């Protein structure tokens, strides 16, 4: 029992974005939790972005800077009155600088259950390009 308590999932605040480009859309901006790992030929980025639909997510890679920006939708209807509010809905924004050059034609982005999985195959330097998102 006590062991289960220790390994249990802890509630962590969505960290507010401290710096970076100023947002034009009003509302809070959060930094999504991310896992980044690589093997010999691919860099993989996983990010928790609950409430973001594929259409509201932009992924951009230029000059070795990867930018994730997604707007979460609250999904509430007009007739509801709030009782308890523990989380706020806003924009997820995060940028990473990639040290390896990425083969931009082979980037794979997959959004499932609020988790983005981005596979960035390493390659020679390529030109900036918008990345399309595959919804699931």
């Amino acid at each position, binding site marked *: 029992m006590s062991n289960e308590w220790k390994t249990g999932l*802890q*509630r962590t605040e969505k960290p507010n974005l401290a710096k970076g480009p100023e947002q034009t859309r009003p509302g809070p901006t959060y930094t999504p939790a991310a*896992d980044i*790992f690589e*093997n010999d030929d691919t860099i993989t980025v996983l990010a*928790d972005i609950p*409430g973001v639909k594929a259409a509201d997510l932009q992924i951009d890679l230029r000059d070795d800077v990867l930018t994730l920006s997604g707007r979460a939708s609250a999904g509430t209807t007009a*007739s509801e009155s709030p009782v308890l509010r523990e989380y*706020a809905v806003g924009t997820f924004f995060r940028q990473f600088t990639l040290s390896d050059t990425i083969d931009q034609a082979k980037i794979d982005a997959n959004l499932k259950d609020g988790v983005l999985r981005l596979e960035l195959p390493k390659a020679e330097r390529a030109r900036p390009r918008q990345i399309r998102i595959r919804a699931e």
Partner: protein
Amino acid sequence: MLVRGVWPSRPSFESYTADFDELRGEMLRLLDAAGAASAFDAGVFPPVNVSQDDDTVFVRAEVPGIKAEDLEISAVRNRLVLAGRREIPREHERVSYHRQERPEGAFRRAVTLPAEVDPEHVEARYADGILTLSLTKAEQAKPRQIVVKT
């Protein structure tokens, strides 16, 4: 505003807790005024938002990356329990991590609802990492128009 005498006569446990209650209320009011979203954060995973209309209580929870079959939801009267486990699948062994921030583990959380609900009429949907529960209020908990006889 907290006003106290310099020498309180016979300090009792009740009077101390009353002061803390007052202090807590004041802090929540200030946090609310400052626009803090998490003034009522229970510190338990997952964070939930509860809202209601006349017939239904809505509960939304941020639970990204969980399989729907790993969620266990039960409702009794005005108490809702959300339980489950978030597992992050192991990647291939020969990977090196730059960042590992996404949490995993088991959770079990109780939420007190603003009204009694009918456990037979609970609808649960899981999309984009958000769990949405629509709980129909029990018949006796629904608001009624009362006609004044003249």
